[in-house]
């Protein structure tokens, strides 16, 4: 009887492993190889001896509560939100602020003569509170530093 080739042993060992896992393999070819190859038969016996050892391994103990430790290690600052979500929040705040501002004026003010109203509309835009905010270098810097995200695209 000729010695099986290393390639045949290598194929048989793959099949042996698959057989242990009940995965598809060429059972007839493996059995034929095992009849001829003592080394692979010995490997099969040794692998079979290991099988009960796996179930003898202890289950790990219950997981400890690691959330407090994880939370403590989180970076202090929140990660930046999507630019569009921030802009939406800023816009909502601005609308609220302007609404409150106008409502306050309406309650406090006597009706203005039409000439005064015209003068207010013609006043330089930078004097309007919301325009002041929009024109401020800090606001522009904030906008330029906001990261672009998938949501923006």
């Amino acid at each position, binding site marked *: 009887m000729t010695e099986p080739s290393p390639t045949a042993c290598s194929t048989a*060992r*793959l099949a*042996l*492993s*698959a057989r*242990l*896992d009940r*995965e598809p393999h060429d059972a007839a070819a493996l059995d034929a190889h095992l009849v001829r190859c003592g080394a692979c038969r010995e*490997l099969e016996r*040794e*692998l079979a*001896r*290991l099988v*009960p*050892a*796996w179930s*003898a*391994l*202890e289950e*790990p*103990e*219950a*997981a*400890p509560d*690691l*959330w407090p*430790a*994880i*939370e403590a*290690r*989180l970076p202090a600052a*929140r*990660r*930046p*939100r*999507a630019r569009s*979500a921030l802009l939406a929040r800023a816009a909502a705040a601005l609308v609220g602020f302007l609404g409150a501002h106008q409502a306050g004026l309406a309650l406090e003010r006597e009706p203005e003569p039409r000439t005064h109203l015209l003068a207010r509309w013609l006043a330089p835009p930078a004097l309007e509170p919301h325009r002041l905010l929009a024109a401020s270098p800090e606001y522009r810097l904030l906008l330029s530093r906001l990261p672009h*995200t998938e949501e923006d695209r």
Partner: protein
Amino acid sequence: MDPDLDLARRLARGEREALREAYELHGARVWRLCRRLLGRASEAEDATQEVFLKLFERAASFDGRARFSTWLHRLTVNHCLHRLEKERLRRADELRPGDGDPCDPAPEPGRALERDEAGIELASLLARLSPEHRAVLVLRELEELSYQEIAASLAVPVGTVMSRLARAREALVRLARPPVPLRGRP
């Protein structure tokens, strides 16, 4: 439909509450995997924390091609393999002849009698395998994942899983063989 998709989206937005939910849902599984791959409870605790910190940091890169739980599993396995590799390199630098194996999860003296001998021996053999071999065996034999699931967790083809499993088993068998006594010269 991935049941964790909404959770993944909230994580990507940086919501801490979503991270807490992810920990409550998947923390035990991540812990168990870290414990089995790394051996020691203290190592597993540290690794579990790091996995969830990484999850928070990288959630935006989750693309939904795999299930969120598979993606987290892969993150955990990669993190543990990275730790094992770092430990292996450190030991290669530091280990001197006669030193014990720092990775050997041998039980504490008082507990040894409570555990089955075969299990103890297998645990110590596993600790001596290469990280790659240990990971594939743990995923198959202990986590009971299918070849496809292992392939997804390790980001390798199914064929690689098959061959890696076969080689890992052979390596385990070789380690389990009793040492061949050296014959003295006549």
